[in-house]
């Protein structure tokens, strides 16, 4: 096999689907947190339980009744998706920088949409499992009633939320190209979500500026869809919320793509890709 093509340079092209698949399989393995099944199991089984228990006890201390407890339990069941989505996707970007592979990714001619979308596929699956486990805890330990008939609508809401959250993670991950690390941002948004997304406190209880900030978060819309599904709301009203979650996912992903492109240029200008 000739190493160089003496007749002229070859131009290879990786298809969209091949790039998507390669990234879906490869990205989690490059990121520490997903290399080990025990940590994935910890994220799916431990985090929803402890986070939910923590906030439910706070509600109990502040004198909340069954409906407040249910509100908090459902909110946290879905909010824990932040770990496998936002947090882990940010961490993947950080890992690429630390291992010095980011520069090679950026210099490759690969399709960016497939590259970034592929990176989110495994986090979406883990997010789904985490949310499902959270809802099981909410139902079995904290008295949340989930009618069997609500499960199909609930499944749609949770799936859309997982997509939207991973897209949001990619958005924050894009910032990591410019910043030294994005894991801190991931941490901050974990707690921002707890305040502004209607996880523990209804959005209507917050001051108006905070409410508006809350509406900018995909988690807010995803959670609204989950709550509406559990409440057995009509398909028409659910469709509106699902539309909003899907829109949040698309906007997040679109913004992520633009931001990656922008910060890619910025990072090349400032040389910050190699800094961490």
């Amino acid at each position, binding site marked *: 096999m000739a190493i160089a093509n003496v007749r002229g340079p070859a131009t290879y092209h990786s298809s969209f689907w091949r790039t998507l698949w390669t990234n879906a399989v490869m990205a989690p393995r490059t990121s520490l947190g997903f290399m080990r099944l025990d940590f994935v199991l910890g994220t799916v089984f431990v985090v929803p339980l402890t986070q939910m228990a923590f906030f439910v006890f706070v509600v109990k201390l502040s004198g909340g009744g069954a409906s407040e407890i249910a509100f908090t339990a459902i909110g946290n069941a879905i909010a824990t998706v932040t770990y496998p989505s936002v*947090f882990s996707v940010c961490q993947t970007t950080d890992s690429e920088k630390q291992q010095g592979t980011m520069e090679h990714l950026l210099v490759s001619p690969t399709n960016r949409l497939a590259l970034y979308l592929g990176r989110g596929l495994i986090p979406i699956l883990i997010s789904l499992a985490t949310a499902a486990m959270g809802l099981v805890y909410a139902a079995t330990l904290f008295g949340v009633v989930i009618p069997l008939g609500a499960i199909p609508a609930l499944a749609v809401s949770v799936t859309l939320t997982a997509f939207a959250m991973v897209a949001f993670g990619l958005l924050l991950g894009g910032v990591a190209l410019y910043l030294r690390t994005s894991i801190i941002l991931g941490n901050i948004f974990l707690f921002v979500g707890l305040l502004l997304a209607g996880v523990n406190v209804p959005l209507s209880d917050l001051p108006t500026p905070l409410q508006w900030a809350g509406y900018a978060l995909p988690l807010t819309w995803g959670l609204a869809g989950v709550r509406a599904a559990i409440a057995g709301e009509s398909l028409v009203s659910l469709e509106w919320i699902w539309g909003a979650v899907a829109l949040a996912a698309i906007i997040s992903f679109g913004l992520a793509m633009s931001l990656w492109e922008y910060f890619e240029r910025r990072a090349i200008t400032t040389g910050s890709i190699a800094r961490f």
Partner: protein
Amino acid sequence: MATATVTYSRSRSTYASLRLAVLQFLADPQWLVPSMIAPVIFALVSFELFRGSGPYYLTYAILGAGMMSMWGQTLYGSGWATGQDRVFGTLEPTIQAPTPYLYVVIGRVLWNVVSGLIGGLIVYVVIVVSAGSPPALPDPLGFALLFVFTMLTLASVGVVFAAFYVYTRYAGFIQNIGEFAFYIGTGCMFPVILLPFVVTPFALVLPPTWALDALRYLSIPGYQGFGWGVYWDLLGALGTTAVYLAIAGVVFRRVERHVLEEGNLSDY
């Protein structure tokens, strides 16, 4: 260059490590995010959660948010710095230096105590501004002193946790998974006594549990908590902190030995 045998000093190494932590902090302004912005968010979350639940809700909110903010700074930050040593590849030369690594960690923890206290102050200001009035504290000075002490109890846990970061590159993930369990166990937002009894022995192993209970005795009239009063709490906090600091040396020696056996110091 003639050869010489240098003699390290533990206090000098600790100071050097503290100084390095400050330099690294100043070199990277994005650390303002966890140090300054995170406490504001914790304070707002905490304030909203406790809003309108009794006369002392502000105290609960301050303690809860302060504790969560300090977790990030003191406990997580101390271990994180060791994790960063792995990433930078500086863990090997630092371990190879004659100073025991424990004293390097203590230097970092001291800096994190300072930045954690700044975070605590931010939490206090944000909650007071949100509420429009300061919390009703019977003994503000005692509260402030005990708050600093609580920080030190947390720091003692941070020192031991940092050994975990030397032990394995996965420590950060384990700490993330255990974050809310730690909040529950230390009773930062609610008295541990509210939890099922089976949790209590685990909670009492953590020094901040005792210190936080003492803080509530001091600041919330009629507070029952564990029921044994502020002085026993203080004694418990002192005792458990001393145990943590005492075992830190042994833990670090063991961990250092383990990583030299495994040869994973340069993994990240």
